[in-house]
């Protein structure tokens, strides 16, 4: 019987594919950062009901959520050059479309996609922030920007993080479509290797293992961050050290009033 599955190849593929991990991560991180910043802007515009922009963003969010990411990638791929042509025409510039790296099309599509998906989540999280704390910050004489940065966003993050985490993970997986816009990342490289060796199953299994690993690592990191930003929910038990000491031994109680033990809820 011929060798149906080349088990060794599944593993030898992995280092080859991982060479393209930086591209995948680059798309993910850049789109996430820009997407989140844009999402915050959309959320703030919609919360403050700024005319025209609110309607525009509402439409944009609805459109992005209602169309497949694959179609959006194609729209970006064909749309960005058209936008550039218009720009050249109206501003009498002469930028060359061929100089735009394929990365940009992918980045634009994913960033807009992230912004649309996260803006609702962020809007809800911002709304959940306690009015009283914002008023306390105002009465301390903090400016709107300071309050946003130091009170509102950290508070909202606690609420938004689980959903943001899920969105981040689906972005990692979503980058496997970037090849349609001409970017060679892990999946695209996998297709090249498979085309050369005709070992499609093995290559896709290698890819699956890598994406799975990335997702698991991301989940662990998110859980650590969650634990850290939820630190304020821990319960502290105050034990009077002096009482404990004098009860248990003859040691003269030292002058250190309390010892703090931290334990977690649940």
């Amino acid at each position, binding site marked *: 019987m011929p060798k149906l599955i080349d088990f060794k190849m599944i593993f030898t593929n992995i280092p080859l594919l991982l060479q393209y991990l930086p591209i995948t991560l680059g798309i993910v991180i850049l789109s996430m950062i820009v997407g989140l910043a844009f999402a915050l802007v959309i959320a703030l515009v919609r919360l403050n009901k700024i005319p025209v922009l609110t309607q525009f963003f509402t439409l944009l969010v609805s459109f992005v959520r209602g169309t497949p990411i694959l179609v959006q990638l194609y729209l970006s791929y064909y749309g960005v050059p058209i936008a550039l042509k218009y720009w050249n025409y109206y501003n009498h510039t002469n930028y060359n479309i061929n100089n735009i790296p394929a990365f940009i099309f992918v980045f634009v599509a994913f960033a807009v996609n992230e912004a649309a998906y996260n803006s609702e989540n962020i809007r809800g999280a911002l709304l959940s922030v*306690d009015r009283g*704390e914002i008023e*306390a910050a105002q*009465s*301390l*004489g903090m400016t709107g920007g300071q309050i946003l940065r130091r009170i509102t966003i950290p*508070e909202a993050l606690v609420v938004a993080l689980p959903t943001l985490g899920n969105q981040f993970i689906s972005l990692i997986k979503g980058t496997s479509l970037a090849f349609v816009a001409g970017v060679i990342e892990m999946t695209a490289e996998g297709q090249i290797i498979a085309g050369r060796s005709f070992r499609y199953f093995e290559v896709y299994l290698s890819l699956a293992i890598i994406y799975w690993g990335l997702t698991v690592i991301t989940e662990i990191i998110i859980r650590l961050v969650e634990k850290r930003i939820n630190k304020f*929910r821990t319960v502290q038990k105050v034990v009077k050290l002096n009482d404990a000491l004098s009860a248990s031994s003859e040691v003269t109680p030292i002058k250190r009033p309390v010892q*703090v033990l931290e334990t977690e809820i649940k």
Partner: protein
Amino acid sequence: MIEIKHLAKTFSNHEIFSDINLTVNTGEILAIIGPSGSGKSTLLRCLNLLEQPDQGEVTIGDSHFTAPHISKKQAVKIRQESTMVFQQFNLFRQKTAWQNVAENLVTVKKIAKTAAKERALVELDKVGLSEYANFYPGQLSGGQKQRVAIARSLATDSKILLLDEPTSALDSELVGEVLTTLKSVVEEHPDYTVILVSHELEFVKEVATQVIFFEDGQIVESGQPKDVLSHPQETQTQRFLSRFTQQTIAQ
């Protein structure tokens, strides 16, 4: 010093007050009593611009504003003149006790973090909470939370204190510690100008220099605490106080 002239505030067709005139001199402690919904909180919040007054003129400390045209920048400055203690404490729940107290120092006064922490610890010590500096609000009792809030106000160095029912959200056994703290604060700072909304009448008698009875957005009666509280002249005040004492006794 606080000087209020013709202050008016309406919430969407619901007029809270239309013409408040009031002066609190430096070093004075004005207590405001009155039924629920009469507009006491709204008045304090207008002084801190947490509500936008519709009309009127206010001098607060070194600042002055004429409603309703107040720019954001001016509002930030006016808020720094006074400091407010809220009924519900309004501590920053993600910050520890000392971080709550240091927030104004770090963010508004741009003081270095270590110096701000040192100052915060001093203020926490004054309210008897130095041991709790690293506790989060969720780990403190109501009384402790309010004392942290008082420390946070003291750290701003504002000489105008706005206290909106600082003990009414507390279980009765915790009221005493907060009142003791407040009493030592006003005794230690005779140069502070204080407006206190409170129905702790014994405490009001002890510390206030002036009392007003407030109803339906009107100052019905004002005077020395012993006069207004023990020998009220107006029937509305009498009715409120007798009902109020009956309730307190019943509890």
